[in-house]
């Protein structure tokens, strides 16, 4: 281990730290406690100073224990304030954060007096962090802490998961929710405390939140979230310390993590912004197309079963489409063999007629429901149905179909199915396959 250069040590150290932070940070972010990392980082200062005053020397383990102690006191203080007073949680965190840090600043000024001896050089750096000060011994400490923390999370995974998502159920099952909660917070405190001398206060808070918030864009499942957050933390640590050779290491790591966050924010499938914008655009396009078909059906309905030839102008004024949009919609319909367009006339093909009838049926089913179950006046239901009809599930449709048939308002093209010209044989048993998505 002694053969490692400083930059290698920094990379390993920050990777370990990033991985740990990602994992414990996931629980904090999921429980809405992202800023507790910030609080712990600030509240650790008085503990560090007191530990120094007691020990008289800069020993990482001792200072870390001091930091941990005052961090845990801070957590207890916040809990007491929230439970016993009218002060709300965000204010409680802010109060504890700032007053503890203020006490730390006072102690720091005491330490810096010439009358107080000891090697004080490293203490100031608890505020901003300085990876260059990392000794090999510190790496061992980091590795040890990482192993303990990750083992704890792995062993208590199911319990943590339960407490995270349904505390009341956990309590009713007899799990010691308060103890588990404190264990989670203690793990957070430990990781924060060992990270402080490396990346400093604010940046430690960032490492707790960023990997977890980033991973959240990619998955819903807790174990994947933890793995991904850990991996992202490691990546940020390695990349950050490598790319940021000429910059303050802590800041580079955080900026790398932020870059990963922004990329995930934009490009993650399903939850990313781009994916959601595309999905919404696709939905709107489908809605416009369905409106086209239904309009064609409604305009030609009086002349059924003859399929009407309609003028494009007539169609356009039915729903006041913009001409360009209508042109694109008709192109799509022609390409899908749903309509025939000749000169200025539009006509539904048999396939198109069937599809349009289906859509109209759905629309009227919903209108009926609104009138009968929600007591909405007949002239008020069209707009509502317009919006809802595209998203109704099949079970609902079946039920409403019955009501419509009784009222005699079922679209005719579907209701009339000719008799079979031959005897029907039962089909051979086939393996089930998924219905194709429409």
């Amino acid at each position: 281990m002694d053969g490692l250069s400083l930059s290698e040590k920094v990379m390993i150290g920050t990777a370990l730290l990033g991985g740990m932070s990602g994992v414990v940070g996931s629980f904090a972010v999921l429980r809405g406690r992202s800023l507790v990392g910030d609080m712990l980082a600030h509240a650790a200062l008085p503990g560090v100073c007191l530990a120094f005053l007691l020990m008289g020397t800069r020993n990482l383990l001792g200072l870390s224990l001091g930091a941990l102690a005052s961090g845990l006191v801070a957590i207890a203080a916040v809990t007491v304030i929230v439970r016993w007073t009218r002060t709300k949680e965000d204010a409680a965190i802010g109060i504890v954060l700032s007053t503890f840090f203020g006490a730390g600043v006072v102690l720091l000024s005491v330490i810096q007096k010439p009358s107080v001896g000891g090697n004080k050089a490293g203490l100031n750096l608890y505020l901003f962090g300085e990876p260059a000060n990392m000794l090999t011994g510190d790496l061992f400490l980091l590795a040890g802490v990482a192993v303990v923390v990750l083992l704890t999370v792995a062993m208590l995974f199911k319990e943590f998961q339960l407490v995270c998502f349904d505390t009341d159920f956990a309590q009713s099952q007899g799990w010691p929710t308060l103890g588990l909660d404190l264990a989670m917070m203690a793990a957070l405190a430990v990781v924060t405390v060992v990270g402080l001398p490396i990346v400093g206060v604010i940046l430690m808070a960032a490492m707790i939140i960023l990997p977890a918030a980033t991973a959240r864009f990619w998955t819903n499942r807790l174990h994947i979230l933890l793995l991904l957050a850990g991996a992202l933390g490691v990546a940020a640590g390695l990349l950050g310390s490598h790319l940021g050779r000429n910059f303050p290491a802590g800041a580079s790591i955080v900026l790398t993590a932020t870059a990963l966050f922004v990329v995930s924010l934009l490009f993650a499938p399903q939850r990313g912004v781009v994916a959601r914008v595309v999905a919404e655009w696709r939905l709107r396009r489908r809605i416009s197309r369905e409106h086209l078909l239904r309009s064609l059906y409604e305009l030609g309905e009086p002349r059924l079963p003859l399929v009407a030839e309609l003028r494009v102008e007539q169609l356009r004024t039915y729903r006041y489409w913009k001409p360009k949009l209508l042109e694109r919609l008709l192109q799509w319909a022609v390409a899908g063999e749903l309509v025939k367009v000749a000169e200025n006339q539009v006509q539904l093909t048999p396939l198109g007629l069937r599809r349009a009838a289906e859509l109209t049926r759905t629309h009227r089913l919903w209108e009926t429901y609104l009138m009968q179950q929600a007591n909405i006046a007949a002239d008020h239901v069209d707009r509502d149905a317009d919006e809802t009809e595209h998203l109704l599930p099949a079970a609902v449709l079946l039920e409403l179909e019955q009501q419509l048939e009784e009222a005699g308002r079922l679209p005719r093209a579907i209701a009339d199915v000719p008799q079979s010209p031959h005897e029907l044989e039962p089909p051979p048993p086939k393996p089930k396959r998924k219905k194709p998505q429409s």
Partner: protein
Amino acid sequence: MIEETPKNAVEVLSFMPELSVVDMWIVVTGAATNVACALVGCFLVLRRMSLMGDAISHAVLPGLVIAFLFSGSLNIVPLFLGAAAMGLLTTFLTQSLHQYARVPSDASMGVVFTSLFALGVVLVKKYVSGLHFDVACVYAGALEYVPFAEPIFGLPRPLFTTLVVLVVNLAVLVLLWKELKVSSFDENLASTMGFSATAMHYLLMMLVAMTTVASFEAVGSILVVAMLIVPAATAHLLCDRLGVMVFLSAVVGVAAAVLGYAAGSWLDTNYAGMMTVAVGVLYGLAVLFSPRYGLINALVRNVRMSLKVMRDDLLAMLYRVEELAREKPLSPANARRAVGGGWLAQWGLAGLVRSGQIASTDDRLQLTDTGREVARSLVRSHRLWETYLVEHLGMPLDHVHEPAHRVEHFIDEQLRRELEAKVDAAAGDPHGREIPGGE
């Protein structure tokens, strides 16, 4: 015999350190900062945005560096502009992340301000490394050096800028009092009243950013964060009206400045840190001793209530014993045990004997006339309530004693009369016992 006449009032108060002009500037600067912060801080606390103060005080860093680079000097005006811009940007990014990317609100705040701060640190290292950037100074400020800063209009520069911000904050509060008030408690009402709650939000954040920057030089960021939150939270524990809360938070801010300065001088430590600790202590005192919400007062109220209930129980029990006309006398020990025992029973009994409601002779307890009157009302309340529960609410017979036992202490004469009107008191209670008549 007085040998020398005192030279001035300060010398007479020999336990106080001599106050000099230097000291006075420090206290005044601290007080001005604290008040400026407390004014906006009240609204942050009420809107549950306390940590935005922390966030903005860190996120302004890149704005300050950029303003410094553009203006080429440490003139306060471009710094204000830079800070205000960063305040707006932070708010905007936090809101957008929360609204459009569906990031939880606390995480979005954390992501935005930490990455902006990291950006600021990088910018400082790259462009401002020539300037001595004392890390600790940013956090802890340099109140000690304020009196020696260059004067503007006779005031040390940090004090001048702080006073300007104080006046601006006060002006905004006065001019927009109703809007700030409504938007803090009910955003939808604000919209219906015709002004934008969002605009108020952005305005508030801009004020926070400017207050932060103005205070940095003197007191550092940590005192700013403390003063934005703690005086307001303290005042919140002491009152229920917004105007009073704002006033009290200013008072707490000033007190923290004075106490912090005094303690800092005595212990020879950092003033800003000490003021922070002082305001924390004031908060702690409010938590314990606030007249309405303090823990000590709540405890005292609880004990007094328990004691009253205990005394009532003793009296009512003795009355019932009399009713049964038992031969065996009731000893104090047995009586105490019957009502649950413990020091509460001891206190209760002693209090009743002292106030002449129970006579204790020869290890035997007896109700005096006054005691009997009180006991009679209690038992009357109890049995009227039981009758009411059975007759009007249809509760089963074995379920009515417990509720009546709890409620009897709080039924007053007016309620007894109303109950009497509703039930047939002459017929006795559901258990067949007579309901004692009223006075």
